[in-house]
């Protein structure tokens, strides 16, 4: 680790924070995505409108602004509401902001995948006597999931790299650690190259995992 001037362990700590941010945001963001998609597919115009508004709003503004709004705006709003300062944890705020962003894209992916399943499939399921819920879980969702998997995986890898923007609110993730290390050592090339390699390892692992999952998901499909 001499080549990193002793900053290797700091970078690894940053990598750990990045992975934690990404995983937490993946879980919470997926929940947001499911909710967004569910809203978008409602008959009720208000609910449907809310679903579309969420996706349009979040996808339409830079993620950096979402982070700012959640962390600083959130603090100020809570202070106004409660009349005293409320501490918002940087990690929690980061996860929430990243999840908002991820959820908006995930909602679109889920809706697209659900609608891609031929209507005849649902009708056939009903004809066979399956209830709506049974049809959804045993016929529609498995097929939709297969379609959604590739874009969902794509978005997950984007999320992994997107975690770097929460460094702005004081989250000590990989990019922030790299900035500190390059500032202290004046070796920006070395530090950012090391960090690029770490990101590559992380995204590489994620890609392999996704490929395996995709292969597994389509194991019953011919050719």
């Amino acid at each position, binding site marked *: 680790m001499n080549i990193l*001037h*002793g*900053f290797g*362990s*700091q970078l690894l*700590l940053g990598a750990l924070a990045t992975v934690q941010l990404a995983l937490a945001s993946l879980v919470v963001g997926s929940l947001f995505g499911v909710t967004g998609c569910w809203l978008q597919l409602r008959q009720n115009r208000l609910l449907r409108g809310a679903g579309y508004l969420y996706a349009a709003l979040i996808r339409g503004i830079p993620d950096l602004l979402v982070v*700012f709004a959640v*962390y*600083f*705006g959130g*603090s*100020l709003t809570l*202070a106004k509401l409660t009349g005293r*300062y409320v501490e918002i944890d940087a990690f929690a705020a980061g996860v929430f902001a990243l999840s908002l962003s991820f959820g908006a894209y995930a909602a679109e992916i889920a809706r697209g995948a659900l609608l891609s399943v031929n209507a005849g499939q649902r009708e056939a399921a009903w004809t066979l006597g399956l209830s709506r819920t049974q049809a959804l879980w045993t016929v529609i969702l498995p097929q939709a999931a297969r379609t959604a998997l590739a874009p969902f995986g794509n978005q997950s890898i984007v999320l992994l790299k997107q975690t770097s923007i929460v*460094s*702005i*609110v*004081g989250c000590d993730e990989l990019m*922030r650690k790299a*900035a*500190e*290390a*390059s*500032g*202290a050592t*004046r070796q*920006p090339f070395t530090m950012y190259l090391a960090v690029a390699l770490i990101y590559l390892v992380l995204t590489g692992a994620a890609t392999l995992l996704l490929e395996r999952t995709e292969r597994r998901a389509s194991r019953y499909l011919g050719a």
Partner: protein
Amino acid sequence: MTVSMSKSRLDRRFALTLLLGAGLALSAQAQSVSYRIATEGTYPPWSFKDAQGGLQGWDVDIAHALCEKMKARCEIVAQDWDGIIPGLMARKFDLIVASMAITEQRRQRVDFSDKYKETISRFVAKKGAPEDTGPDALKGKRIGVQRGSIQAAYLSQNYKSSDLKFYDTPQAAELDLVAGRVDYIFGNMVTYFIGFMKTPEAASFAFVGPELKGGLLGDGNGIAVRKGDTALLEKVNAALAAIRADGTYDRITAKYFPFKLM
């Protein structure tokens, strides 16, 4: 006999407890104020992190010295520059001690302490570059500068016919100077002096032109507090005057520089 002895022991213990309690109460009173202080953390020697992740630097030492004079407990945190004023306004911290240049623009959002450091800006270019660095002399030249810095504002105002390139960090501008993508960089002289100019890559580069300060280039550096936080501001100014008067300020500066900063 035994009774009186045990009584006197009890008395003594009681007195001790009282004393201890009073002492604790006193020290608790003296230390009861606590502040959170933000600094930048990637900007040696002002503030930077060592390989163990510990915060170091001139600003960090000054912040500690001020806290001691204010009899306050302080937590110093490193905060990305872009979020540092928003963080102050959102009450994430109470003070910014981060070599922040006092500008009119920033004055509209925060209150500044008395100046705690002079800001001197200067051009750096290839050795042998002409000493004249006026706007006419640098017409068409490519100048690298940190985005959002006072130097960037100064160049945007006065060097309109130069080709200005903006960078997120001073280091990025320095890299492009070495790579030949810009002809000049413009920034804080002290920062260049202890940083870039000491690197082997800088061997063929030198300061050119006069030391520039004042006007758009700032009224020096100040410690920022939230607008209207006058009580804290007065305490900071008093502490600042105290560390200047008793030599603490110069002692801290001497740890990092062979010259004075004010």
